[in-house]
C-alpha cells in the first residue's frame, strides 16, 4: 500500500507529516512504540530538510512517499530544492558533554539511524532524496 504527501517547507507542517505516517500505519495493528519510531524517524528527516536544507523557505516543497510491503515500511523523502543535503551520521554522541555545553541540537540523525534499519541519503539530479526502511511485524 502506498501513500503520498507534498508539503511546503515550514515546520508548521510537521504535525501533518506525523499524522500522515500514523494514518498510513493505522490498519497494521502495530505496537504504539513501533508506530512512534517510524513517525519520529520521518519527522526528524523532514525537519532537517525544512530547516537545514531549505532555511524554512515556504516556496520550496518536499514529497513523501510511504510504501508498506509485506513486513517492511519503505519511506522516500524527496527535497525539491537545489541544495544538496547529505547529513553525517552521528552514531554515538556524548550526551553528558551535550548537557555540560547546553547543546540543543545534534541528536536527530542519531535517533534516525537507531530507529530505522536502513538510512540512505543520495542525489537525484540536483535534488537530495532520503530513503528509510524498517522491518515491522
Amino acid at each position, binding site marked *: 500500500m502506498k501513500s503520498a504527501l507534498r508539503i511546503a517547507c515550514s515546520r508548521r507542517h510537521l504535525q501533518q507529516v506525523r499524522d500522515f505516517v500514523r494514518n498510513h500505519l493505522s490498519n497494521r495493528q502495530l505496537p504504539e*512504540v513501533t508506530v512512534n519510531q517510524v513517525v519520529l524517524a520521518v519527522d526528524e528527516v523532514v*525537519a532537517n530538510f525544512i530547516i537545514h536544507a531549505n532555511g524554512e523557505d515556504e516556496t520550496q516543497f518536499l514529497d513523501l512517499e510511504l510504501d508498506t510491503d509485506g513486513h517492511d515500511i519503505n519511506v522516500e523523502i524527496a527535497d525539491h530544492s537545489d541544495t544538496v543535503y547529505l547529513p553525517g551520521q552521528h552514531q554515538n554522541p556524548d*550526551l553528558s558533554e551535550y548537557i555540560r*555545553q547546553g547543546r540543543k541540537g545534534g541528536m536527530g540523525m542519531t*535517533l534516525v539511524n537507531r530507529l530505522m534499519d536502513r538510512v540512505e541519503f543520495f542525489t537525484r539530479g540536483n535534488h537530495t532524496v532520503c530513503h528509510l526502511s524498517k522491518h515491522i511485524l
Partner: protein
Amino acid sequence: MKVTAQPTADTLTLLLDGELDASSAIVLDTELAKPDILDYRKVLIDCSKLSYISSAGLGVFISHLQRFQDANVKLVFFNMQEKVFNVFEILGLDALMTIVPSATEAEAA
C-alpha cells in the same frame, strides 16, 4: 503543545499537553528559560499528556539541565507514556535524567 505551570512552595510542576517537536519546542524553551524557575528546589515535568517528543524537544531539556544542576534545582519527569520513554531510552537519556513512574515518586525524588 500547551504548558501549564502549577507552582507550590518549593516545587514547580509543568504539565505538558500535546506533541513536542521542532515547531512547538519554543513554548517549552520559553518556560524553562524564565529566571525565576531557579528559585524552586524542584521542577517536576508531568508527561501524562505528552504524546510525542522529537530531538528538538529533548534538546530543550538537555540545554537547560546543566543550568538547573548548577542552581541545585532538581528536574524530575513522571507519568511518561511508554512510547515517549522509548525515545529517551534509545538515546540513553534515561540514564542521565531522573524519570520516575508517578507523581508520588516525583515528589519524593
